[in-house]
């Protein structure tokens, strides 16, 4: 009789543990999905801002003509991307060019004295930050989720309910490089 109780007790405890691990996994998955959709929103926002940016600075940033052309091309590529990987690549390129434009912005006094340009710069900085922050948050959540998927005992639960390791949002190399620009 006692043996039955013990067995039932162990089963109940095991079930509770499984349920809690499962719920944890689901929570992380939802959070990661949220982060992905956030990134999507911010990337769209950036694509909307780029034409405005080019319009505002093309007359002023004579030394950045090439960057401006490239950023428009990358934008077109990102908007027309067929596959997920193509899109991530194009967006990475945009981030690189934007980083460069933001870095040289200070060298143009005309832009610093123009209120519209200042507001645009604020919007762009904010959008870039949002993208970077969401990516950071997404990667944090993903790494915790992946740890759960790999570690014992949660890996057993993850395996039997079909939770797979998720991909990180990688930063492309171009984005990490320090822009080589001349100090004014």
């Amino acid at each position, binding site marked *: 009789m006692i043996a039955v109780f013990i067995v039932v007790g162990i089963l109940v405890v095991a079930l509770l543990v499984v349920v809690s691990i499962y719920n944890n996994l689901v929570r992380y998955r939802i959070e990661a999905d949220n982060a992905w959709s956030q990134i999507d929103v911010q990337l769209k926002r950036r694509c909307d801002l780029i034409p405005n940016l080019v319009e505002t600075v093309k007359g002023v940033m004579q030394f950045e003509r090439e960057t401006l052309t490239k950023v428009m091309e990358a934008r077109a590529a990102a908007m027309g991307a067929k596959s997920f990987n193509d899109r991530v690549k194009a967006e990475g390129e945009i981030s690189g060019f934007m980083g460069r434009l933001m870095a040289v912005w200070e060298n143009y006094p005309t832009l610093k004295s123009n209120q519209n340009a200042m507001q645009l710069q604020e919007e762009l900085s*904010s959008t870039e930050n949002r993208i970077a922050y969401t990516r950071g948050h997404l990667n944090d959540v993903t790494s*915790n989720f992946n740890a759960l998927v790999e570690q014992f005992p949660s890996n057993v639960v993850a395996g039997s309910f079909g939770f797979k390791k998720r991909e990180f949002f990688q930063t492309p190399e171009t984005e*990490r490089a320090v822009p080589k620009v001349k100090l004014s």
Partner: protein
Amino acid sequence: MLQPLPAETVFEAKRRSRRNTRLLFGLLLALYVVFFNLMGLVVIGQGTSDPASLLREWPGDALDGSPLVFFTVAAAVAAGIHFLWASSKSLPGILKALDASPADEKDDIHKRLINVVKEVEIAVGLSGIQPVVISTTAMNAFSIEDGSGKKAIGATEGLLGKLSRPELEAVIAHEAAHLAHGDSRVMATACALFAVFAVLAAALRPGRVRRSSRGGGGVVIVLWLLVAIAHFLTRLVSMAISRNREYMADSHGVHMCKDPLALADALKKISTGDRGTFLGNEGFSAVFILRPDCAAIEEKEGFAADLFSTHPPVAHRIEKLLQWARQTGPAPASSVPGSGVYVRQESNGSWQGPVPAGELVGNSAILPTSWIADATGLKHASQEPELYAEFVRRLGAKSSGHACPRCDVPLASGQYEGMPVLECEYCKGRLLYPGGIERAIARRLEAFDGAAVVQAKAWRAVQKGRLKDLCKMPHIDCPLCGQRMNKLLHTELTRVVIDRCSNKDCDVTWCDGGEIERIQVLVEHVV
């Protein structure tokens, strides 16, 4: 050194915050149980001739209505009510007490705060953080979460005006980390809980007690004990929650904004900038503490609160941030020796370069306080011997051979009010020789316009803090003899705190930018 966090997300933090809140309740409950039982002992014991027997019978028989059970249950009920009341304090009330108003969408500078708060919301995965602003020129930021989970991050106008965008991002990220960790909420509850005891403490001031203590001496002693313990606990809890959590918030904040230098610079600006007292510091809350809403003041998880508590942590925090920056700094500069020097733009935190080492000298865009990075590491431009020499050259014949205690740049000799002084071109601080303050006050060569007078008066009007707090600012070393400089209150009239060399033979006075002018204006126009 500060480490990037092991990816602690909001979930783990929430769990810990709940644990801390429970712990807090346990603490309060224990306090109440002890207090109620002691009170009971004293009150009942007043009628009995044999207190020892009362003590023996106190636990009694649980079924037979023992006083211990009765008072413990009463204590639990009281603690529960107290706790519910304290954790239900609402955000609007707290913000009102702090004199904070919502940020204005149409104002470009406020818009920046709104944007930055939106950004960090994303970074920590929280939503609905209200950006608020306090209209004061002092520099501070705070985060608050009330019992119902409403959150706000606030900054003062002074902070918004003086910090660059990356610095503001770093500060707000630090505050958001407090929110994400649940520090603000636990802190808010803790302060609301123990503020009541502070009210009691004020009511029990020695003078009042002696008059009313006829026949109630025992009660008063127990009350005293309670207040003392509660005071101690408040200290303990706020230290445990706030101090230790600062490094975590720094770490998490930098993990978000990826810019340890911006936070280091911001901390430095706040700690050496406007030394005015803040709306929320102890001086103000000492006036306030009699009211129940005083708790709001102490809920601040603010920079100033930390800065003024003890000074080593600021220097400590900055040092840790610099260590972090050294490890993560612009990678290309440290990886390729001789590739040139990278210069950090303060306005947007971006690194520019590489500039061949030779081209740095003579580049007017580089200030002594600019950060530069080369193969040897990260430093201020003035720490590079060649550049320091360049800054000395720029001063020409005015160079004094002594360095500014704040900026590490050469001081220039100049004249002020007809007397020789040493001046820093960057922070506008002045070194006065013995007797210089008196001379400056006596003379009227410098004319101050109406704006300067209004500004100085406005500054003086908010100086309500205790001198003790002002004097906790980090000490500086004398630029001439290298000895420590003491903090010195000029007079109660001006309330400007200046630094005087502790070496009596040297006896020079350092006035930070604008301080001597402030003294003069106040002396000339307030009397």
